[in-house]
C-alpha cells in the first residue's frame, strides 16, 4: 500500500502543476529568464531521464544500445513518435534473440 500512497503523492503534485496556472494565472509571465527556463526545461528533463537509463532499458546493454541508435537515427529524420518507439523495441528484440 505504500506504493499507492507514493503514487497518489505524485498524482497530487502533477495535478497542481497543471491546475494552478490554468485556474490562477490570468496575466502573462514577464521575466525573460523564467520564460527561457520554462522553454528549455521540457527538453532537458527528457534528456536527463533518457541518458543513461536508456542503456539499461532492456536486459542486455548491447540490445539497448542498438535500440537507442535506431531511435536516434529515426528521430533525427522526424519519423512519427509511435514508429520511433516501436522500431527501437524491434531493434532491441532482434539483438536479444542472439
Amino acid at each position, binding site marked *: 500500500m505504500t506504493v499507492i*500512497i507514493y503514487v497518489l503523492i*505524485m498524482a497530487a503534485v502533477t495535478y497542481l502543476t497543471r491546475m494552478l496556472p490554468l485556474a490562477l494565472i490570468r496575466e502573462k509571465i514577464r521575466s525573460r529568464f523564467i520564460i*527561457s527556463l520554462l522553454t528549455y526545461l521540457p*527538453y532537458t528533463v527528457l534528456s*536527463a531521464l533518457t541518458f543513461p537509463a536508456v542503456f539499461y532499458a*532492456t536486459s542486455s546493454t548491447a540490445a539497448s544500445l542498438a535500440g537507442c541508435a535506431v531511435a536516434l537515427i529515426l*528521430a533525427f529524420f522526424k519519423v512519427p513518435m509511435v514508429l520511433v*518507439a516501436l522500431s527501437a523495441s524491434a531493434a532491441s528484440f532482434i539483438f536479444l534473440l542472439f
Partner: protein
Amino acid sequence: MNTQKGTGLYYKDGLRDGIPIGLGYFSVSFGMGILAASKGFSALAALIMSATNLTSAGQAAGIEVIGEALLKSGGALVFSLLTAGELALAQLVINLRYSLMAVSLSQKLSPRFGSGHRFLASAFITDEIYAVGVTRKGDIEPRYWYGLATVPYFSWALGTLCGALAGNILPGAVGSALGIALYGMFLAIIVPPARDNGAVCFAVCVAAALSCLMFYLPFFSFLSAGFRVIICALAAACAAALRSPVEAEK
C-alpha cells in the same frame, strides 16, 4: 460564433482528433506497464499510477524512485518522508512544463470555461493533447477538450494495465525489448527540435552529459535517480536560458 460541424466545437470532433494520440499512448504505456512490473509494481498500482498521473516522464521518474526504494526495502516497503519529498520534488520539476502549457492554454479557452471546467480540464494537459488542442483554430470549448482527452486517457490507463499484466506472460525478450519504447518516444520528442535549434541542442546535450557524469562518477553515487534528473535538468535549462534567452512574447 461558428457552430458548424467539424469546427472543433463538438465532443465527437475532439474524440476523433484524440484517436491518433490514443494509439501512440497505448504502445508507450504498454512499455511503461512492463517497466513498472519489472521494478516491483503490482498491476493495480501501475494502473492507478497511469489513471491518476497521465504523464510519461513523471511516471518514468516515479517508477525509478519507487523501484529503488522497493529494491532497498527487500519487499517490506515502509513509508519514508524523504522518498515522498523526493517524489514530490521530482514531479514538480519534471512536470513544470505543464504549468507553461497551462499558461499558454489559458489564453485559448472559450468563455464557457468557468472555474469548475478549469479544475477538471487541467487534469488532461499532456504534451500531445495540449499540442493538438492549442494548434486548433479558434477558442477551445470544454466539450471539445473532453472529447480530445477521452481516447488518450483510457488508452494510457489500459495500455499500462495490459503491459503490467503481460510483462509476466510475454516471452522474456519481447517484454524486455518493449521496455525501451518509452525512451524511443522521449528521443522522438527531443531530437527533431534539437536538430533544428542550436539552443535546444545545447540544452539536451548538456543535460545528457551531466546525467551520465553523475551516474558513472562514484563521487555522486549518493544521489538517487530522482534528484539526479532534477539537478541535471535544472542546471542544463539554466545554462541554456542564460546562453540563449528566448524572445519574450509581446
